[in-house]
C-alpha cells in the first residue's frame, strides 16, 4: 500500500474521493475494503481522542516536578557503601595533602644571624678614571758626548712636559753639547752650565739627560 492511500483512508470516505482518487484507490483495494478501513481509522481516532480527554491532569505532581528535577540528578543514584567509603577516603587523603601543601608554602624561613670577626666599614668611595703608578729608576750611563760628564736618567714615567718645553730643552742640550766642544777648544762656559744644573732633558724615548 502507498502512503497516499493511507492519507486518503485517514481523511476521506469513498464518497468524498475525486474521480482520480477513486481510480487510484480501486487499483489497490475494493470500495468495501476502503470503506471498512476508513471506518476503522475514524473510529480509532475517535476512541483515542475520547480516552485522552478522559484523563485528568494530575496537578499535585506538577509542584514537585521542578524541585525533583533539580535534586534528583544528585540524589537518585544508587551507590554502594564501598563506593561511598572509597570516595570518602580519597577525599580525606586529598584534603590532608592539600592542607599540608598549603602549610608548607605559607611557612616562613627562620632568621639566621651570622657572626663575623671583622666588620669593614666603607666611609668614602673615590671614583677615578685613571690610576697612575709611578716608578722612578735612576741610572748612570756614559754616553759618547765628547768627554763631557753627564748625568743620564731613565724613567718609565711618560714625559709630562709640553712640546714647546721639550723643544726648548732640546735646543739647550744641543747648546750645552756645543759648549762642551767649545770648552775643549778653550772657551769656558762654566758659568752658563749652572742654569741646567739638576735638570733632566729628554734626549730620546724614556731617556733624560741632566748636567752634572
Amino acid at each position: 500500500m502507498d502512503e497516499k492511500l493511507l492519507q486518503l483512508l485517514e481523511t476521506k470516505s469513498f464518497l468524498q474521493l475525486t474521480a482520480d482518487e477513486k481510480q487510484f484507490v480501486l487499483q489497490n483495494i475494493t470500495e468495501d475494503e476502503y470503506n471498512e478501513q476508513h471506518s476503522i481509522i475514524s473510529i480509532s481516532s475517535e476512541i483515542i481522542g475520547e480516552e485522552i480527554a478522559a484523563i485528568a491532569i494530575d496537578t499535585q505532581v506538577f509542584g514537585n516536578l521542578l524541585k525533583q528535577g533539580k535534586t534528583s540528578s544528585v540524589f537518585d543514584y544508587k551507590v554502594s557503601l564501598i563506593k561511598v567509603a572509597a570516595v570518602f577516603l580519597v577525599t580525606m587523603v586529598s584534603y590532608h595533602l592539600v592542607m599540608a601543601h598549603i602549610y608548607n608554602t605559607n611557612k616562613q624561613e627562620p632568621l639566621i644571624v651570622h657572626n663575623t670577626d671583622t666588620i669593614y666599614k666603607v666611609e668614602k668611595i673615590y671614583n677615578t678614571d685613571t690610576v697612575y703608578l709611578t716608578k722612578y729608576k735612576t741610572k748612570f750611563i756614559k754616553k759618547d758626548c765628547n768627554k763631557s760628564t753627564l748625568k743620564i736618567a731613565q724613567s718609565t714615567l711618560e714625559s709630562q712636559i709640553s712640546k714647546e718645553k721639550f723643544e726648548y730643552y732640546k735646543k739647550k742640550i744641543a747648546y750645552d753639547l756645543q759648549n762642551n766642544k767649545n770648552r775643549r777648544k778653550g772657551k769656558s762656559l762654566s758659568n752658563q752650565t749652572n742654569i741646567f744644573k739638576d735638570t733632566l732633558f729628554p734626549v730620546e724615548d724614556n731617556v733624560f739627560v741632566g748636567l752634572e
Partner: protein
Amino acid sequence: MNKKSIIISDEELLKQFCEGNTLAFENLYSRYYTKLLYFITQMLGDTENAKDTLQEVFIKLVENKCKFDFNRKFSVWIYSIANNMCKNSFKHKAVVKKAEAEILHTYTKIEETTTNEKKIAIRNAIKNLDIKHKQVFILRHSYSFSFKEIANILEISEGTVKSRMFNCIKKISEQKEIQEVK
C-alpha cells in the same frame, strides 16, 4: 475590543522555561500530560506505573530543558524520551506481566460502559495489538505525527512505520469481533 489569542509554540515555551519561566513549563505540562500518559499507559498497560514513568519523563525534561536542540520539534523529542522510558520498563518482565493483566482489566471496564458494539470491538482490537504496532498506531492517531516523525521517535525507518501502520489496520479489521459486527 477584540481579544487576540496567540498560540505559543512548544519550542518557544521551552525556551522561556529554560530562561526561568516556570509558567511556560506548566503550560507544556498541561499540553502533554494526557497524551503522554495515554501513550505510556498503552505501552506499559499499568496506569500507576505509567504515571511514575511520565513523571520521570517530565523530570528529564526539567533537567535537560536547556540542552534541547531548538531546530528539532519538541513533541518528537518528548515522545522519544517517553518511548525510551517505556523501553527501559519493558526490560522488567514483571512490568510486562502486570501490563497484560491491566489490559484485561481495562477491557472489561470499557465493555461495561460502552454501548456502541463496533466501537468496543475496535477499542479491544487496538488493545490487543502488539506493542510495536500499537505504538505506531497511537502516535499517528493521538498526536497526528507524520510517518517521518514517528520514525524519529521510535528510531526505525519510515518504511517500517508505514508497513506497521497498514498491518495495524489489517489486524484490527481481521479481529473476530469486528467481523461479527459487520
